[in-house]
């Protein structure tokens, strides 16, 4: 979680592709450590993708999303320079966010 989010946005014509990698352990609460102790659940419960500050995709996640969640999305009617941001919140109240601009791809 201390590592920065990676977010890449490219636009072709008016279609924009956004790829996001959010470093996070996504502990399911079902995993045991080496000493057999159950690891407490800590996972991202919500993700919001915004285009120029307006939410356009909102996700609710469960524990079945892999560690360091990686998502790809497609936005419509975008142009180079439009801003895209992602924000996440986990079940322990921790947060992360990142922003980038669409680049011609």
């Amino acid at each position, binding site marked *: 979680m201390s590592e920065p989010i990676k977010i890449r946005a490219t636009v072709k014509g008016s*279609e924009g592709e956004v790829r996001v990698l959010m470093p996070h352990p996504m502990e*399911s609460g*079902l*995993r*045991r450590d080496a000493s057999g102790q159950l690891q407490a659940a800590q996972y991202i*419960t*919500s993700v919001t*993708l*915004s*285009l120029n*500050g*307006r*939410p*356009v*995709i*909102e*996700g*609710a*996640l*469960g*524990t*079945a*999303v*892999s*560690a360091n*969640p*990686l*998502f*790809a*999305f*497609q*936005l*419509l*009617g*975008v142009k180079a320079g439009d801003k895209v941001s992602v924000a996440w919140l986990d079940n322990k109240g921790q947060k992360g966010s990142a922003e980038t601009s669409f680049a011609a791809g």
Partner: protein
Amino acid sequence: MQRRDFLQAFGSATALAPLLVAGLLRPGAALAMSFNRAAFDAKTASDALRLIGAASAEASRDILLKAPEVAENGAAVPIEVISSIPGTTRLSVLIDKNPLPLALQFNFAPEAAARFQAKLRMAESSRLRVVATAGGKHYSVFREVKVTVGGCGD
């Protein structure tokens, strides 16, 4: 006099600004509605489907679910979902045999295509199910995925 007109016009524009902002925020507010954590705590796929209101989802050929037939690593099974059902506003993914079958849900505003790629954990070989919501109706597609090494317990 002209200056006053200008100031009045400016004043009314300023008064309208919060309304514009409220208007701009409305799609976001609509997106945020009705996610349901209870469904994520459901222990069976049928309970999860019922809790997301999709118990009677209709089978559809208009949802593409790309997933490997055999996944060697259950900790990160890549999937791609594309709905070509017009007006799709939500996609939900369930993994029937996971301890908690509902994996994720995405809501899409009109500025977003109803599609995504993700990586999911699968505890064991299972049916993978996608439900698309469009115009208040639910449509689904499923695919069986064999998992060589499960990805939930370790």
